[in-house]
């Protein structure tokens, strides 16, 4: 696979924000996720759990509740007191509406998806009507004392169960009156007892209310009589969230100890109608509070303050031992957060509210394979660029020569000219950025650093001319022929500056000719999300990876898939490759070895050698260490196209510098854990 000098970068101090709430839409097989910094992500379960969309966070926006309503519309509400609808095509907040009830703790859509119920700090439950292009306040239910922590609609839509401090209430939607008031046990603590927060409720169709509270109990109540049916102590601390499966035979709860439990409705005896809820499986995948859970048809989904999204399939509901039956953990976004100036040896790190520019270290000694070389020049933190305003950065890029830095927030694009002269750094902001570029979803500089490509809404790509000594001008806007509503989120430009490929939210890849500024062709549609794009510098072949782990090579000049790509499709990829967890997030090439493609995901990087035969399922995919022990001759016999390295974990970025050394950006999970607050103290046996 060739030997490289590797820059092993561990100074990217990225800490992903904790997960605050989840909303699963079984109809579209999508999961919406809100983080504590207000960012929103949408995962597509049909496309191998790919993070399809991302809306950057906002300093003042804290989302407490998410729900899907009226088809595929996504609503969020938070402690700011606003209810917002998200525009998933343009990847931003469509509009916000004040609920006029103080901070909003909970929100749920009614079963038909036409009404939203919102639980507020002042104790009121407000109903909003979902209209085709907005929501409208309808009425308030009877206001009671105590903030509404959680609420749930009865599947018939006639009643709402509400969880508050120390009690549960049932409202009749028609009359708006509270028809039931159920007191929940408090936690005894010395002479006094501590208040019991009902963190989550669920209303089942048979009239049972399930509640989870801060005492650590999951309780089942009869909503008509107001009596306790069953109580299950689950945790010594709080049970923060619960979710019910669509069939109402399984419940998942998450505790502040990081444990997730499943409850199942099981018959007491076979053939008898009597059944009871039994706590069955415990899962301990999180180290911190599990703030949100969701129950899909085949999996338990949990997200916690440790920023992990865990998807645990239920073995009995998954058929076959394939891709779907594997446990999945996502910690890092499926987006590129690092950009590299290959010529200058600079790295640009993107944080939610600032950018960091680093110069890579250097060494003047050489060594054998596996040696750690002494650093003659330590890596240097050159620059920190703080974004202005409350909005978070959504994308950034640095030009290959390292002289231009561009980043964008939800509302505006920023461009900076960087001067690096023997050690001193100076930055000049380009003041006049054309106004039409109000939202950018991806940025890319051309290879010769003369133009900047800005991916925008409705499939458009704006081309900006970068002018020395620090200016820019709008050159062209490229639009697909077909006309698309989705935003473009991936860009790739050819090294000779002739071609630009852009992938949008509808998974269509358009290739534009930059010489004529018009669409050149469209890559044949493939029914899976695109995770990375790159154009080969020599052959101008476009390499595409999809979330189902397929790799395609498309010849731009010939407007067709290459023979190698066809061969791959015919032969099929190795099983081990197809069952990987995370998508390929970046592709790069080695100019000295035109047959090589460098790809990486979170857990490995791979050099794909097109000249070697493809492996079949019988040969092991990860055979690098085994190969090392063989003789040179035998090694050649066993070699196959996939050369995989798993030494660096977890990987955020891999690129090849101009001078031929490899940059590897790692973010060890332990380093993230140390940044988190201490978890709930738990007694462990034997300590």
């Amino acid at each position, binding site marked *: 696979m060739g030997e490289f000098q590797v820059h092993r970068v561990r100074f990217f101090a990225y800490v992903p924000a904790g997960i605050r709430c989840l909303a699963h839409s079984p109809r579209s097989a999508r999961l919406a996720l809100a983080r504590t910094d207000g960012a929103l992500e949408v995962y597509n379960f049909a496309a191998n759990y790919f993070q399809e969309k991302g809306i950057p966070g906002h300093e003042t926006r804290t989302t407490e509740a998410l729900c899907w309503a009226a088809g595929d519309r996504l609503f969020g509400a938070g402690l700011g007191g606003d209810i917002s609808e998200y525009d998933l095509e343009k990847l931003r907040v469509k509009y916000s509406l004040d609920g006029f009830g103080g901070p909003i703790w909970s929100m749920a859509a009614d079963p038909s998806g036409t009404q939203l119920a919102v639980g507020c700090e002042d104790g009121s439950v407000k109903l909003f009507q979902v209209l085709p292009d907005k929501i409208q306040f309808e009425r308030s239910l009877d206001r009671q004392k105590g903030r509404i922590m959680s609420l749930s609609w009865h599947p018939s839509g006639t009643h709402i169960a509400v969880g508050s401090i120390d009690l549960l209430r049932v409202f009749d939607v028609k009359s708006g009156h509270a028809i039931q008031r159920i007191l929940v046990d408090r936690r005894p603590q010395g002479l006094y007892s501590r208040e019991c927060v009902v963190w989550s409720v669920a209303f089942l169709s048979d009239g049972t209310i399930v509640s989870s509270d801060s005492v650590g109990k999951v309780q089942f109540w009869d909503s008509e009589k107001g009596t306790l049916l069953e109580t299950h102590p689950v945790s010594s601390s709080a049970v923060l969230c619960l979710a019910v499966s669509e069939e109402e035979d399984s419940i998942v709860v998450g505790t502040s100890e990081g444990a997730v439990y499943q409850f199942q409705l099981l018959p007491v005896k076979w053939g008898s109608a009597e059944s009871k809820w039994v706590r069955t499986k415990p899962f301990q995948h999180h180290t911190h509070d599990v703030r949100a859970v969701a129950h899909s048809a085949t999996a338990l989904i949990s997200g916690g303050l440790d920023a992990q999204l865990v998807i645990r399939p239920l073995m*009995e509901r998954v058929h076959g031992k394939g891709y779907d039956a594997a446990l999945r953990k996502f910690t890092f976004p499926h987006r590129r957060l690092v950009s590299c100036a290959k010529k200058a040896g600079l790295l640009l790190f993107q944080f939610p509210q600032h950018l960091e520019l680093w110069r890579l270290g250097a060494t003047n000694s050489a060594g054998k394979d596996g040696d750690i070389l002494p650093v003659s020049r330590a890596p240097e933190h050159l620059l920190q660029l703080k974004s202005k305003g409350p909005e978070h950065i959504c994308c950034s890029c640095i030009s290959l020569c390292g002289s231009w830095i561009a980043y964008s927030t939800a509302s505006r694009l920023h461009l900076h000219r960087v001067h690096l002269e023997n050690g001193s750094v100076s930055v000049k902001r380009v003041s006049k950025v054309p106004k039409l570029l109000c939202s950018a979803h991806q940025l890319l500089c051309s290879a010769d650093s003369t133009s900047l490509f800005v991916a925008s809404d409705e499939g458009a790509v704006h081309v900006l001319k970068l002018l020395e000594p620090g200016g820019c001008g709008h050159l062209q806007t490229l639009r697909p022929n077909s006309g698309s509503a989705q935003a473009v989120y991936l860009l790739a430009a050819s090294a000779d500056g002739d071609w630009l490929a852009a992938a949008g939210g509808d998974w269509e890849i358009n290739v534009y000719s930059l010489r004529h500024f018009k669409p050149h062709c469209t890559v044949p549609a493939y029914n899976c999300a695109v995770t990375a794009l790159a154009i080969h510098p020599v052959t101008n072949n476009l390499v595409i990876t999809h979330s189902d782990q397929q790799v395609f090579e498309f010849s731009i000049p010939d407007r067709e898939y290459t023979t190698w790509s066809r061969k791959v499709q015919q032969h099929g990829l190795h099983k081990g490759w197809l069952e990987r967890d995370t998508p390929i997030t970046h592709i790069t090439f080695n100019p000295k070895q035109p047959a090589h493609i460098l790809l990486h995901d979170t857990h490995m990087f791979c050099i794909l050698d097109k000249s070697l035969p493809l492996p079949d399922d019988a040969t092991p995919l990860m055979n690098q260490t085994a190969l090392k022990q063989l003789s040179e001759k035998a090694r050649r016999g066993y070699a196959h196209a996939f050369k995989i390295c798993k030494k660096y974990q977890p990987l955020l970025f891999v690129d090849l510098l101009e001078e031929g050394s490899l940059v590897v950006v790692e973010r060890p999970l332990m380093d993230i854990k140390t940044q988190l607050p201490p978890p709930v103290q738990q007694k462990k046996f034997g300590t």
Partner: protein
Amino acid sequence: MVAQQPLRVVRCGGSKLSGARAAFSADAKYLLCASGDYVKVYSTATEKCVHILQGHTNLVTGIQLNPQNHMQLYSCSLDGTIKLWDFTDGILIKTFVVGYKLFAFYTLAGSEDSVFIIIPKKNEDFLDWFQLVSVKLPKTPDQEVEANELSLILDDIGQSPKCTAFGREGEYVASVRGLDLLVYFFKKKKVNRFPLSATSRKGANNYFTCVACHPKEDCIASGHKDGKIRLWRNFNHKREYTFSTLHWHHDVVMDLAFSVEGTSLLSGGVESVLVQWREGSDYKKEFLPRLGSTIEHISASPDGTFYCTSHTENKITIIHSNLSVSAVIQGLVKGSDVKTGLVVDPRTKALVLNGKPGHLQFYCLQTDKQLYNLDIVQQEYIHQIGLNQVDLVKAAFSAQGSWLATVEQREEKETELELQMKLWNYDEQTQSFTLNTRINMPHEDHVTALCFRDTDELEDGTPTLVTAGNDGRFKVWVLVNDSDSEKQSMGWSCDFVGSYHNYPATNCCFSEDGSLLAVSFEETVTVWNSDTWDLICTFCHPPGRIQNLCFGRLSCSKYLLGTTDNGFLCCWNLLSCALEWSAQLNVMVLQPDPLSENIAAVSRLLEGSDLFVFKPNEPRPFCIQRNVCRERVQWAVFIPRDVPDSIGSEKHQWLSRSQLYFLTETQDLLTFSTKSAEERLTPSSKQLAVEESLPMTPFSLLLGKHRHQQRSKENADLDTAVVQSHLAQDSPAIKEVRERESVCEINMHI
């Protein structure tokens, strides 16, 4: 009984009580438990053994009440029979001969005429394959019937009765073996197999150890090697089965039992804590700790008032359902190693030996009951693998039983030895031993022997103790009066230290009158005057390391006997200071009878141990008993009888005043009996157990008096339960008796 009875080796008491799950009678008044070849019936209120159901010729492996008649009990045994008993009267009703070794036995309320047993596959028990079969019990009026209508239910299952359990109303049977849970559904006639993976990343050890079924719901509880309990539900589906996990035990879950209504689950293991899980919840558990030793079996009474746990230390604890101990039935504690040997307490005539770790147990052989435990080490025993505990290695009583000397040691490494000698005084008021003196490191090295001088015949009467150690010294300890002005106290202190060329001292003993002390140093025996502690003479012929040493008694008190490791038994005359005679005999144990001149020697050749009884003045033994048992005999002791036994045979006259007990390597306590099989089988069941529970009325008192008189005439010492050793089957003497026995049994039933 004119004909001379052959001497038979019989097992005497101390059988394992925890061999199988105990069973309660329906009203929970009696506890039935398998004990060796017998089934014992205990009263739960008084802890007394009410009946011994005798009849099986091999280990009883399972007992269960007859679901059709709760006054009857089924028992199964390795001898291949199922017996039906009336346990209130102690009468054998019926014997079903199956013809296979039976390892477990189950009955179901629903199936009237068939029961379930676990038998080895193809009747070859060296293969670790067993099968669960159902047996049709024929309904014939005969006493003994063949039951050979077997039908296979589950193949390739575990041998232990704990590994199979029958579910609610006999709908299914669950069996565990290795990593598999098998559930067989009787109605659908199908088997579901649920495999687990051997280990997980978190270090789980998922091997199954036991299983129990919920009596009312479809729920199976299984115990695992890593201490987890899994509650399986929905197991009638091959895929959608589910289980929840309860985890408190840190080591193997030994047994599980549901309460009668199924509201709580009981579990136990090496922690010796009974855990009660309510409603299968991890959060609602209650504990009954400090039960003494590993819980092996748990059972619940049918009326729900009692639980009982059987422990490895041969104990059954009856526990009230509110988790308080209500009664303890304690048998002879059989530890891993009896280091103290068999000692007789002169006061109670009880057998004294190592009991629980760090304890000395006083065991009454007549009633087969433990009298009490004396905590010697006085430290909490911590169950942990690899932890070196303090071990009780030596114990000795003074002649009157007023003093007890014990030695405990703890050996961390070769070089680090902790020794402690304790001297205990018998307190008449509290009727127990109290610690008098504690001596740290009495010797630099292991203590090899200790003995008291019999002081009763001496004028001065100072209690004297001699210890011999591997450090080449013997030390004489005497009781001195170190009373201060204000406080009267007595304590032991070292009086004399003797050595002989720095050879390790291996044995020591006093002559009967206490005037001479013999100490052996490697190959040399030295004799010392116990008044002046002067060396009188030495014996070193023939060469060989001395292993046992004892003085002759009564008329033979001029002789000193010793055995060497190269296979010689020597007798020296103390008057002539010369070797009187010697014989080539590989003696393992040499034991003098305290009441006569007789000395018993147990020798071992290649296989089997032989017993020789002789008088020192005569080199020819007057009693030779070949092949008393297959294993090595570790210890032997003569225990004086309360009443001299009238023994017809001249040859066995030596057994009339005291009885010889011996302990084998496998911890079997055996003795000799001259009684015939007929005598042994005289039914002890005349006493009706029912009367015990009747209220006391003047009439019953009158009747009881009358009966008591009758009974006392009939049997003088039937209390002593003598058991035929199944391990000593090879002994020809026993075989013969066994044949006679079976004839007698049949006669009796006819």
